């Protein structure tokens, strides 16, 4: 990542924000949607804890932090992943990927970061507020080291989510329409709004090894609550980097089969 890349991304995002604010009503819709979703999630969470239960040892505040991480990730998804990765399918279907491939700029970065949609920002802000409330109410003191680890785990979870989604979107080079697969992935991620231990054993294994939702929300929240082991930190980072590398190799491999939409 260098200065040229950042300046190009700056131009990309400023132009896409200009294009997005042509549709101002979206902001109001998004704010209402975030308020509705969060209220629902907090209500369900409070029902779990209403009879003195806890979610597999997780306190109310810790669960609130997991929900905060999930909301933050959801916001990031709406800002960057959703608008870009869901468009890969139409780039391939309509043949506009041709223009991207012929630009002197990394095509994976282009299709992944060309658009920034500001409508996910209410979720990002709400996520940060929830995490802060969770940490503050549990009387945990977030040291600089814990903050760094928490941030690192968040970056890892973003990379894991991005890589999985990108690989699925790339398969549209062969299958053209993979919207359903993208939707399945996004819907499954909803499971990440509660701590992993809230789920039965079989599902927990599924969310750890098949679709690694545990790494996405539970691990960063554990880091924020100072309860994550060094082994998990290293595993999370290594897993994220491995998936990112696979996503890049997979994209280059898929492009060998790109036939471009006929004219």
């Amino acid at each position: 990542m260098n200065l040229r890349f950042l300046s190009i991304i700056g131009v990309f995002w400023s132009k896409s924000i200009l294009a997005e604010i042509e549709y101002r009503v979206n902001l109001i819709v998004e704010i209402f949607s975030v308020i509705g979703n969060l209220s629902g999630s907090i209500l369900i969470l409070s029902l779990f804890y209403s009879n003195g239960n806890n979610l597999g040892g997780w306190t109310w505040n810790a669960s609130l932090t997991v929900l905060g991480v999930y909301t933050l990730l959801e916001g990031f998804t709406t800002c960057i992943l959703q608008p870009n990765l869901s468009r890969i399918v139409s780039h391939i279907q309509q043949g506009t990927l041709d223009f991207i491939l012929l630009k002197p700029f990394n095509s994976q970065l282009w299709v992944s970061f060309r658009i920034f949609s500001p409508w996910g920002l209410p979720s990002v802000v709400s996520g940060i507020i929830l995490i802060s409330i969770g940490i503050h109410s549990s009387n945990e003191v977030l040291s600089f080291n814990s903050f760094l680890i928490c941030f690192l785990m968040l970056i890892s979870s973003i990379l894991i989510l991005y890589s999985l989604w990108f690989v699925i979107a790339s398969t549209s080079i062969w299958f053209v329409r993979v919207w359903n697969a993208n939707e399945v992935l996004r819907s499954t991620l909803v499971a990440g709004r509660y701590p992993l231990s809230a789920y039965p054993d079989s599902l927990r294994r599924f969310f750890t090894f098949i679709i690694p939702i545990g790494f996405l929300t539970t691990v960063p929240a554990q880091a924020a609550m100072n309860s994550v082991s060094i082994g998990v930190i290293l595993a999370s980072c290594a897993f994220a980097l491995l998936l990112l590398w696979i996503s890049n190799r997979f994209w280059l491999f898929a492009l060998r089969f790109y036939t471009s939409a006929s004219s």
Partner: protein
Amino acid sequence: MAIVRVERLSKSYLISEKQPGLAGSLKHLFARTNTSVRAVDNISFEIEAGEIVGFIGSNGAGKTTTLKMLCGLIHPTSGSISVSGYKPIHRKTAFLKNITLVMGQKQQLIWDLPALDSLHVNASVYGISDTDRDERIEELSAMLDLKDELNRPVRKLSLGERMKCELLASLIHRPSILFLDEPTLGLDINAQIRVREFLREYNKKYRSTVILTSHYMGDIKSLCKRIILINNGRIFYDGLLATLTKTYSSSSFISIELTKAVNPVLFKEFGEIIECDELLVRLLVPRSSLKETLFKLLNQMPIKDLEVNDPPTEQIIAKLLRSVSL
């Protein structure tokens, strides 16, 4: 020296065949039958720097596939391509900065924003400074006769205005090799003429190499000295457009103006009737019998004026394409 060199180039696609109806769809879902289609079949040619070459052929002849292999979008099945000394499929930065692809049926401009915003995006991707960018936009928009259109959202532009903005966006980095795939598709006659004039001017000013596909003979005739005719993925003519007319035209084209209307059926014995509109008749007559036919026409028909020419290029090419398809 050749800037584009193509040797024994071929491209095959696997196409899955599907029968109509529910039964066909179910069969297609569980057991697909794939057929290999040879879109480009063992073609070779060279193009010199500064040349404008027209690629002509029917739909599905292999023109666009060839163009896409030349700019590095799709992998050839076999054969070799060299463009400016680069192997296109590697898509090296220096190669990409030297070429452009314009497609009449696809657009790269940002739909909701003024075209100027898309130009700024492209300029930053190509690493063009703000001063150079503004200078180039001013120069190219003057050549394309674009003024306030650049400040209007792309979705509000007419097709012709949009195409001109597309050309500007594709040429802001001053490429020396232009791949144009039907750049005047759907444009009205005035917009077509403006685009052709612009391309001619750009080619002259920057000595750029242009490879053009078009179904409009107007584009070909006004821009290309040399044409490559392609059918079923194979080249069957590569040479000057003027030579094609001389070599392949075994007929002459007679335009007749009559003093009074005549039953069109009566002209059948003189040759193939191309057009018959009351006092105006156009015939295609074999060269071998031209003298006799003219003599007969002058004696038997109420002729006011008569002109003999080579047949229109469209006629020759259409006839050639028909003959090689058989």
